[in-house]
Every structure is written in C-alpha cells, then in structure tokens.
C-alpha cells in the first residue's frame, strides 16, 4: 500500500487562512504544507473545520483571507480543473448511473463512441456493472458514494478531495470504497481525505492532519502519528477514538 508511483507531486502551501462568521474563527491556519505523495488523511472532531478546509482548497468558498500556492504559484482555476471532490453527501444528477458518468466524459471531450466503453470500464472498477441504466437516485448509500467517486475519477484528477465518503456505510461498502481510493492513489492520484474512522486513516493514510477548533493540531507521518503522537490533542483524540 505504501509504494506509490514515483511521480512529481505538486506541493500545496496554505498561508494565513482565516474564516470568521459571527465573530467566531471557523478556520485559522497560519501555514500548512501538503507535499507527501501518499494519501493525506484529515482527522478531527465534528465542527473542527475539515469540510471548510477542503472547500477552500478546492476553491468552492472564498476565505476571508489566505493564500493557496501550488508549486510556488498561486493556485487558480487552471489548477482546480485538475482537482475533483467527493462530498460528504453525494450529489448525483437526476439521471441514470451511466448518464452521471457521461456528463463528465462529455465535458472531458471524449468522443461519443469512446464514452460507452469508458463508462463500462469505470462501472466495472466500482463494482457497479449492471447498474448503468438504473436511476442514480435509486442507488443505495454505498453505491451512490461509489458512483460519486467514479465520476470524480472520470475527470482524471491529479488531486482528489474526499469528505467522509464512508461515514454512513457498512464495513463491506467501506471496504469497497477504500479499495477504489487505494487503487486511485497507486495510479498516482493525490488523495486528501477527511475521515472519522481512525482505522481507515491507518489503512489508507501516509500522512495525517489532525484539526481542532479550526486550527491544525498536529501534522505528521502516519506511523509516527499513531505510535508516538506529539500533541496533547492527538493523544486525547486517539485514546477517545476506536482504534482497529
């Protein structure tokens, strides 16, 4: 799991990030550098600002202040074209499963006759073969989340954000999603994933970012984080969490 394709990975640097609402600091990060080649797992209690951080990185919300750099240049729309995001609650179009994938393939400039085979390939990868014509809205939670990930992967992102994709799923569905994510990581897709599942963070993560109250409580390589956490917050978080 830890042998990621040796590829050039963009270094992402966040500085002076702030979001305030009603006098409350929702996000407050002075400096954060994300550069590992393997998956980065973001942990933290509810309301820690994990989803907000992903949204800011992906350019979906404009922070009150803060600069995002990728390889030294300020991150812009062109960089975001090579990013994709899977939301905490998957948003599927009110169309068939295949049409959800076709929607992005068409935008990717896939020729009409190449789309069919590509859709079949993606569905097979996600274990959704045979579901192509089913209305996407009638998929089960786990299937819907897999489709959302497949659709994100269909955009061929360099960087994939995942916001708790398995929080509502049973162990088997969770395993299916972890397999999808791990395969994408091995192909060289940079993964930044929020999770509440410490076992999942151990299984998938190369680096760990622990957030609390809008701030970064600890950032460390995964093995170090789990065996020898430095911060008080991390020790408390780990002892309170379910470790598998």
């Amino acid at each position, binding site marked *: 799991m830890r042998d990621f394709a040796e590829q050039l990975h963009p270094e992402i640097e966040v500085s002076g990030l702030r979001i305030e609402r009603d006098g409350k600091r929702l996000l407050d990060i002075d400096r954060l550098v994300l550069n590992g080649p393997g998956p980065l797992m973001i942990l933290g209690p509810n309301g820690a600002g994990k989803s907000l951080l992903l*949204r800011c990185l*992906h*350019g*979906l919300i404009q922070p009150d202040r803060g600069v995002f750099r990728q390889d030294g240049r300020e991150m812009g729309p062109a960089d*975001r*074209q090579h*990013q*994709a*995001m899977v*939301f905490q*609650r998957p*948003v599927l*179009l*009110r*169309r068939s499963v295949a049409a959800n994938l076709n*929607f*992005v393939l068409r*935008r990717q400039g896939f020729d009409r006759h190449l789309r069919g085979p590509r859709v079949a390939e993606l569905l097979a990868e996600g274990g959704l073969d045979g579901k192509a014509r089913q*209305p996407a*809205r*009638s998929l089960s939670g786990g299937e819907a989340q897999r489709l959302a990930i497949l*659709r994100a992967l269909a*955009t061929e992102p360099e960087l994939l954000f995942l916001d708790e994709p398995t929080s509502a799923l049973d162990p088997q569905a969770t395993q299916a999603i972890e397999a999808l994510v791990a395969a994408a990581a091995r192909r060289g897709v940079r993964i930044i994933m929020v999770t509440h599942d410490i076992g999942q963070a151990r299984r998938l993560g190369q680096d760990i970012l622990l957030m609390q109250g809008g701030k970064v409580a600890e950032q460390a390589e995964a093995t170090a984080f789990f065996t020898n956490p430095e911060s008080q917050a991390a020790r408390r978080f780990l002892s309170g969490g379910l470790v598998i």
Partner: protein
Amino acid sequence: MQNFAEELRHAMVLILSGDRDLWEIVLLSLRVSVIAVLIAALLGMPLGAALAVGRFPGRRGVIILVNALMGLPPVVVGLLVYLCLSRSGPLGVLQLLYTPSAMIIAQVVLVTPIITALTRQTVETLNAEYAEQLRSLGVSRLASVPTLLWDGRLSLLTALLAGFGRAIAEVGAVIMVGGNINHVTRVMTTTIALETSKGNLALALALGVILIALAVSMTACVSLLIQRSDVEGLHHA
C-alpha cells in the same frame, strides 16, 4: 329537471356524433392554448432560470414583479392586450384584434408569469443542491442552466401543465380580445358563457364536459408524473 336531463342527453349526442361545430371549437381552444403555452415556456423558462442562478441588480425586484403578475386579473390582461392591439394602439397596424393570434397573445401574458415563477423556484431549489458539485466539475454558473433545467424536467413539465390549465380555462381576457366569432374565434370557455346566456344549454354542457375531462386528465398526468418520479427517486434525495 326533465329539461336538464334532456339537455344533457343532447350534449352527449353532440360529443359522440362528432358534431363539426363542437369539435371545431375544441380544436381551436387546444390550438390557441398549446401555442400560447409553448411561447410562454420559451420566454418563461430562460427568464426563470436566469432569476434562479443569476446575480444582477434588481433581481429581487423582478422576482416580486413576476410573483405579482401571476395573480393578474384576466380582465385586466384582456384590457391591456386590447389597448395594444386596437387600431390606435402600438400594435394596431398588425390588425390582430378578434383573431386567434390576439387570444394567443392574451394567454401568453397570463401564462408566462406562472411558468417563470415555477421555473425559478424549481431551478433555485435544484441549484442549492447542485451548485458546489457542478462548480467542482468545472461547470460555471451560467453553463449549469441547461443541466438544471434538464434535471428539473419533471417539475417543469408540471409547471407547463399548470400553465396550460390556466390558459384553457380562461374566459375574461380571451373574450375581450378575441370576441366569439363563429368559425373564427370561438373557444370552449367563451362559447359556454355565451351559449348559456342564450339558453343553448346542450352545446354549453357538451363543451363543459370536454373541459372537465381535459382538466381531469391533466391532473392525472401530473400525479402520474410525480408518482413515477418518486419511484425513480427523482424528486427526493
């Protein structure tokens, strides 16, 4: 009562025998209202979508105006269209008064606000759910309009049927600008009103039965659509 039963029997004979005058009136009604709804949809859907996703000054004002126009009394619409189309009005040269075109115009004015308001509501609700996902997939706010309209297709169809229901059942505006000229501008509602006052109850009743049948099948269509969309999970998350 004897008399009423007799008139009703007469009415059924008119319907079932395919009476030419009767069906000419029904077909003209359908033609006028279908065309009016199509034009209103071409105007109202893009406008409604623009109001839903656009951010421009005066947007709130336009939304309030459209909602107010929905409740416009038909006779007022009739009066305004009459003034525009009358010989000395701004569109007088077209000589449209007392033609089916004039009736279509009046119905377009009545139906466009309904379709605009319902489209805005549908697209706005859908956009609240889709916006971040579409931005993430690289679809800009403007470019997302066709997607939002397509994915709201069931609600929009319901809006069209609602518009059609209002158009086909309307009397006041249509009679002011179309009159009730035999073989030219006689539609169901205006004929019912006039034939009743003349005491020709059979024709009025026959048209009434057809109008009710249309209304019932419309409602049935709408509920079938909604039911089907529930089955396919199109309406709910």
